[in-house]
């Protein structure tokens, strides 16, 4: 039996290809329904080509070789004899599952940057707004500014506008940056109809789009837009105010690498210094009998996740990988590289902060406290600053702020963040908070 952790595109593709070879597969996922963060289908609103999910979801529900465990949060994992044991929480009860082979497709979450006012209610991630809409049928607000960088802003903005919200897009980078990646565009011709799909939706839904700009402050229902350079430093402050009850802001994605880290899978830094897993040509991780596919090996979107997942599924069953599949993965990886080149996230956001701007949302640690931990207490890295300020010690385990704290400490010391600090900041001894009561009794509350 093979366990697939995660029921997003990569996990579903892995389960489908492994079951296609006659292997028993158990897909374990934290959500009540399959599809992951990307494929959500409670409402009529769907993104470009999202109908292809049907093929994978049908397989998940109908293939007798595939078991689907829902609402299960895997909080830890350990090596057990020849295989692995995953410990998970389901409806407050702690359970275990064992298998010889594991395919990790743990996905990613929105990367966010702090700015004055980003803790007020109304500011959320694009992924959050999308999840409210597609997962729960709720439009986050009436007037919504979708800001940040990257192509994910497009499906979010158009879905919200289709559902009746007044939407504006504030994209930090210039579309001309795509000129830096001609080969990636040439080898991914399928991306052009997708672009045309969103461009025509933007025109039809009368969505105003600004490039080279960012929301750098939000107060009392007013989003302040500044012109920014490609490194996100401010070119011209507060050029425009937009009345908005919601600001959906995101700066690409951060892979969730916790579980593979617990299992000892080797990690490395991607070109944008995101922590990702090292995998071989068949998606094998450094630890025996573990495969990793999708965003956890580098942010690349659903197309790349599907290609990697299919390869991981075949490899885990000892099957041959067709050359066409490898080629597909190659072209999608090229496109993923181009995405990083087109939508970089520089350190210029530190100019947006005020002394009192909260950096660590959980522990309410301000920019000033972190800067003082460096200038007055001698902290030289995020870990030391964290010990002085508690930044990153809250319930989210630093998932939201740790990268920003590292960058802010480095910005204050005028140094760059070391590889070791990046790797350490992304790894945690457990994958989700769990109470001692549950650990003791196996039952929550």
């Amino acid at each position, binding site marked *: 039996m093979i366990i697939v952790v995660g029921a997003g595109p990569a996990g579903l593709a892995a389960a489908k290809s492994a079951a296609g070879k006659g292997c028993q597969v158990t897909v374990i996922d934290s959500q009540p329904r399959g599809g992951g963060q990307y494929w959500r289908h409670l409402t009529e609103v769907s993104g470009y080509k999202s109908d292809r999910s049907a093929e994978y979801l049908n397989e998940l529900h109908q293939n007798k070789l595939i078991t689907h465990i829902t609402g299960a949060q895997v909080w830890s994992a350990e090596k057990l004899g020849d295989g692995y044991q995953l410990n998970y929480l389901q409806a407050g009860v702690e359970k275990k599952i064992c298998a010889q082979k594991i395919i990790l497709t743990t996905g990613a979450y929105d990367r966010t940057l702090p700015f004055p006012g980003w*803790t007020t*209610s109304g500011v959320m*991630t694009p992924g959050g707004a999308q999840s409210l809409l597609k*997962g729960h049928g709720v439009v986050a607000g009436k007037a919504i500014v979708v800001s940040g960088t990257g192509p994910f802003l497009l499906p979010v903005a158009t879905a919200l506008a289709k559902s009746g919200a007044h939407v504006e897009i504030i994209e930090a980078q210039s579309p001309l940056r795509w000129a830096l990646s001609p080969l990636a565009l040439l080898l991914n011709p399928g991306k052009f109809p997708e672009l045309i799909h969103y461009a025509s939706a933007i025109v039809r839904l009368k969505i105003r789009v600004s490039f080279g700009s960012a929301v750098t402050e939000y107060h009392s229902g007013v989003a302040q837009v500044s012109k920014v350079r490609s490194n996100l430093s401010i070119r011209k402050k507060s050029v425009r105010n937009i009345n908005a009850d919601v600001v959906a802001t995101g700066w690409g994605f951060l892979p969730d690498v916790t579980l593979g880290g617990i299992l000892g899978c080797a990690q490395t830094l991607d070109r944008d210094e995101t922590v990702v897993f090292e995998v071989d040509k068949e998606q094998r991780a450094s630890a025996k009998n573990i495969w990793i596919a999708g965003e956890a090996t580098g942010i690349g979107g659903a197309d790349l996740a599907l290609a990697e997942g299919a390869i991981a599924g075949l490899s885990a069953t000892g099957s041959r990988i067709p050359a066409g599949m490898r080629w597909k993965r190659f072209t999608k990886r090229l496109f993923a590289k181009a995405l990083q080149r087109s939508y970089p996230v520089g350190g210029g956001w530190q100019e947006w902060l005020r002394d009192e701007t909260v950096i660590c949302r*959980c522990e309410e640690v301000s920019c000033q406290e972190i800067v003082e931990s460096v200038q007055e207490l001698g902290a030289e890295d995020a870990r030391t600053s964290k010990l002085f300020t508690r930044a990153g010690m809250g*319930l*989210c385990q630093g998932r939201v702020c740790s990268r920003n704290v590292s960058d802010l400490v480095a910005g204050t010391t005028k140094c760059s963040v070391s590889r070791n600090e990046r790797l350490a900041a992304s790894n945690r001894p457990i994958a989700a908070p769990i109470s001692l009561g549950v650990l003791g009794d196996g039952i929550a509350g």
Partner: protein
Amino acid sequence: MSNEISFHFNGAKFTGAAGQSVAAALIANGERELRRTRFGEEPRSIFCGIGICFDCVVTINGVANQRACLIEISNDMNVESTL
């Protein structure tokens, strides 16, 4: 989403659709503020919406620190802002 679910939030009665999360049902009812922070007593709502950030934690049926964005509403559920 036809089935209507009724639940309580800080003593007041609300309704939502079956399958909706606590956070989604409250936002649909215009209730943005899910809790106040410990130190600054600042209002917080959902932020990541997918269970990562823990900004939306509430007490559900007496169990503290539950993520309102993940837990689905059920009939007679008692939701309270964690203080």
